[in-house]
């Protein structure tokens, strides 16, 4: 495990061609990411990678200069990355938010709702199944970091629209 | 001896490896010796069985296969409190050794 982490530190991050789904029009960042700790030490880092145990709020002081935040899911059952994503969006982060690692079909919809707008799964997903997963729900019960938040009214809000 | 058991992927029914396939009846179970890993890997891939595993068992005087652990004995026959729902052709004398 420690060995694997060390390996990754040398070559951190996913490249744009590993991204299978991207819901943005801007040019993707073409260089690797640094760890949260490294980002705190460098004043010029523009791409960061968040591991499950990292505190996403550590990035809040320099959100404006970030163009890419990767959130790693080493195992799909570890849901901390969902909170990290929402926290960044709640703080106004508008850059690319990429889910990487053990990203599977059935987590895509929730990830999108938490603010992820690009996806680089370890194993390429069935395109058709994935697009169906993104479109599973016409409506939502909760306010979250859904894309176009102001445009997506929750069910409760729609019920009480004047 | 070592035998293999699991649940049928589609129906969930308890099944036992009989050497060529998966039987509903524990008495069909065969000793797999040291081929456990090989058979399990192959059978999981065919998706006929779900989460199969190897257990210890013995054959009693009348030729019935008897799993060693109480949990697999309950699986072989059915709930002890609903004997009307027992595995259809299971050995009815089995209730004496389940517990």
């Amino acid at each position, binding site marked *: 495990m420690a060995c694997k982490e060390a390996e990754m530190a040398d070559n951190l991050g996913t490249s744009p061609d590993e991204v299978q789904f991207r819901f943005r029009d801007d040019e993707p960042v073409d260089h690797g990411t640094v760890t949260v700790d490294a980002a705190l030490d460098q004043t010029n880092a523009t791409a960061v990678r968040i591991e499950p145990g990292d505190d996403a709020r550590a990035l809040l002081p320099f959100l404006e200069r970030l163009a890419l935040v990767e959130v790693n899911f080493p195992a*799909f*059952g*570890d*849901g*901390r990355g*969902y*909170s990290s994503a*929402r926290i960044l969006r*709640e703080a106004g982060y508008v850059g690319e938010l990429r889910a990487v690692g053990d990203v*599977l079909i*059935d*987590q895509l*919809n*929730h*990830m999108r*709702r*938490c603010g992820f707008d690009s996806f680089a799964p370890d194993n390429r997903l*069935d395109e058709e*199944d994935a697009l*169906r997963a993104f479109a*599973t*729900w*016409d*409506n*939502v*019960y*909760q*306010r*979250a970091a859904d894309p176009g938040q102001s445009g997506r009214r*929750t*069910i*409760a*809000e*729609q*019920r*009480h629209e004047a | 001896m070592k035998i293999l058991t699991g*649940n049928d*992927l*589609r*129906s*969930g*029914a*308890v099944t036992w490896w009989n050497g060529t396939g998966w039987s509903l009846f524990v008495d069909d179970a065969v000793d797999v010796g040291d081929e456990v890993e090989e058979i399990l890997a192959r059978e*999981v891939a065919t*998706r006929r069985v*779900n*989460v199969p595993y190897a257990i210890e068992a013995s054959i009693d005087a009348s030729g019935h296969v008897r799993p*060693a*652990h*109480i*949990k697999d004995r*309950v*699986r072989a026959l*059915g*709930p*002890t*409190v*609903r004997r009307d*729902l027992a595995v259809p052709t299971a050995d009815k004398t089995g209730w004496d050794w389940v*517990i």
Partner: protein
Amino acid sequence: MYQYDQYDQAMVDARVEEFRDQARRRLEGKLTEDQFKPLRLMNGLYLQLHAYMLRVAIPYGTLNARQMETLADIAEKYDRGYGHFTTRQNIQYNWIKLEDAADILADLAKVEMHAIQTSGNCIRNISSDHFAGAAADEVVDPRPYAELLRQWSSFHPEFTYLPRKFKIAVIASANDRAAMRLHDIGIRIVSREGKIGAEFYAGGGMGRTPMIAPMIRDFVPLDQLITYAEAALRVYNRYGRRDNKYKARIKILVHELGAAEYTRQVEEEFAHMLSVGVEPPLAELERIRTHFSDPAFVDGPKTIDRSNPDFALWVDRNTHRHKHDAHVSAVISLKPVGGIPGDATADQMRLVARLAKQYSFDELRVMHTQNLLLPHVRIADLHALWSALDAAGLGAPNTDTIEDIIACPGLDYCSLANARSIPLAQRISERFAQAGRTEVVGELKLKISGCINACGHHHAGHIGILGVDKKGTENYQLSLGGSEAEDVSLAKITGPGFDEDGVIAAVEKVTDVYLATRADGERFLDTYRRIGMEPFKEALYG
């Protein structure tokens, strides 16, 4: 009762199709069992000892006759003619096929039911007081708040892969009939200076490390309820332990941080969440509340004819005071002497559905004690109701007695169990009934779990029994002094365990000690609390 609108219906319908697709991908080999397992669990589908098991949600334990009839139909069409009601007000079917599961969910959706999040590391079915909307002692009906939480927690994008499962109970009475403080979050709706709000408790639970939830907030205003819950969950999702499955429940986080520090973190997150704005409009709570307005109660007799002693005993044991004095709530015991606690046949479910239509404004409840309840029965109708129940074997007058045993499915059905629970419950109820001791002993809550996960609530039993594996044979530990009610306490182990016959004899011995020692009006639990463990130990091991 709550009724779905087109949005709620579309959500459950979409979920059925999502699951149908997931099951297809599993059967086609596109999903491994490891990947599929959490998905099927979040739709209530387990793999148990003999087959798949489906757990269907009965939100806050409330359902109508049509829903109960559907549960009966499912038992016959897809299972083996019966179902098992659980301590979290759900129903389980034991003999389900994976290839039928999506069709069952579709049948459920037609009557506004589902199996969403009845398992998995997510927010589970919200449970509540089974007397909600009927009890004379409640501040308000707690179910609108439970429904608001149901909608909020359904498909929550952030809280679907929590460190571990998460159970919430909502009550609105000083009397706790939902084991509220033994939940991950317990909510008590209270009235303060004319305003309704919520007390929040966090970090309770049973399992291998039982804990009583401390209060973390004494008043959350109604228009901040969801926001506060969201904050409490986010702190747990971020900081709950994920290194060890057995330490992953929120109770461990609250315990390790200390209630004060956990509360501080929740309050900090809460302040932030308020600024984000996640609360549904207050009008939504009002809308939900209109679904729970009182039925048209009518005046009538307030007493019964006691000339039939069997009927009188049933009324005394199985009915509960109602807020309207010409009505009562009537418990339908699923604990016939020698029976399987919580099991009901399809025919029994249909009869209960018919009686609910006839005598209880088309409303039914599932109790955490694994019984059913008709919440609003006119006292004038009680005799007719009792006669119908009695004729169907559902008239056992044993609520809260030693025959009213909570028991998990145990090793007869459950793949986690170490020992059987049901045969013990059957034999104990037979032993006490045959000796005529049930009424003599009075209120005594006996709870049996077949493993340390404590689904049978043994930590909260006046008498608790835990089944363990002792070198391949079943062994049972006895504990005394637990309570899930407002006088909540955790039971203590008496000493070395017993075999099956031994633990049944031990239960008799501790009740002997109670009968010989009790002061006037004392329940078993009261006597235990007064005299302590020693006299019981002496009788058992001395």
